[in-house]
């Protein structure tokens, strides 16, 4: 029992880091990790001793996340108007520029599926094979999402000035 506790608790910091980067939102990330821990406990008997606990827990978390995204798409959450403008609306130009230079803001502009691969490889340093398993996709798809995601992220970070201008003038 003590061993199980340790195995699961050990994973929490990395799960939190990935969740934070994936969702771009502290509250959503903590909820995601919490859900993942509950599910991991419930399904602990399914974990195969000797296989990577980290990859298994990332798999669980990813599935929860995908289901949440799917639900949110079919039934969009209502965002209060002031909340919306605070978060995504126009901010003073300088502040916005700083924000988009931040890689976190650029990440939010990637399609969700590319973001997951870029983060699992670049931040969590999972092997391509582990990523394929976690996301339930073939290796070739891991490669193509990684390649497209990284390319896009790089151009977003490098050309952040242009992106900011577009966002601001759209007002």
């Amino acid at each position: 029992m003590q061993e199980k506790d340790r195995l699961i608790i050990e994973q929490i910091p990395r799960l939190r880091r990935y969740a934070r980067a994936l969702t771009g939102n502290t509250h959503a990330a903590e909820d995601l990790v919490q859900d993942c821990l509950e599910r991991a406990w419930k399904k602990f008997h399914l974990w195969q001793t000797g296989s990577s606990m980290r990859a298994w827990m990332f798999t669980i978390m990813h599935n929860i996340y995908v289901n949440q995204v799917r639900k949110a798409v079919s039934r969009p959450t209502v965002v209060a108007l002031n909340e919306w403008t605070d978060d995504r609306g126009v901010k003073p130009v300088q502040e916005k520029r700083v924000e988009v230079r931040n890689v976190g803001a650029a990440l939010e502009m990637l399609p969700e599926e590319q973001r997951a691969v870029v983060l699992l490889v670049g931040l969590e340093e999972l092997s391509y094979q582990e990523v394929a398993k976690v996301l339930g996709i073939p290796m070739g798809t891991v490669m193509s999402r990684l390649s497209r995601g990284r390319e896009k992220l790089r151009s977003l970070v490098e050309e952040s000035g242009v992106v900011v201008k577009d966002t601001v003038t759209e007002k």
Partner: protein
Amino acid sequence: MTDQSITDNDLHAYVDGELDAARRAEVEAHLAANPAAAKIVRGYRSLNRDLHEAFDDVLNEPLPHAMVRVARRRPLEAMRRIAAALVLVAAGAAGGWALNDVTSPQNDSLAAAFPARAGIIHSTYYAERRHAVEVAAGEKPHLVAWLSKRLGTDVEIPDLSEAGFQLVGGRMLPGESKPAAHFLYEDIEGDRISLYMRHGDTGGRDTAFSFASTGVVGVYYWINGPTGYAVAGGVEREVLLKAAKIVYRQLGY
């Protein structure tokens, strides 16, 4: 020297430490001769550094109490699961003996025993890692041919990928008076469900699409003429229902 065979994928794999020593040396030679490629590699590396700079602080944040509490919780759920499975096995075994004792077949109890049997079979094999199936999914044509011959009907193995389950494989089991078939499926998290199929010894009484449960293992089942199907598993009921509906649809009933 510029190596034409080096692709963009190789550059990613190089950055991510995915290449073997020989290929790594080839990529390094390519980078030395090719400043554009070297620049791309620097770009990918700096991106990874940016990601770590932006998010590594999270690693050092103190763990919220709620998380540690959840993580330390004893797996009561799992213990309850096992206990309930044992109850089901006991009930099913008793039912089986009772049936053997009656001389004239009682179709009603035979039909009632069918989902219980499916539940027992699922509970027996779902946690088995090394011997979960007799014939693995890789030998599907052989599995189909073998079971078709032994059950005396054209056996089809439904594709449950739409519900997130892949075939692990199958086995032959004794039914009431004839061989029966058991197929095991697994989802990406390792959760498993079973499809149990009997032909020619179901009691010959049609049963509508029905649900039976021990509270832990649920079984969707239906008997159509000589053939009975049961989809059993301890997964969420909607998940099991989705899989059962696919089986129902694909097998043409």
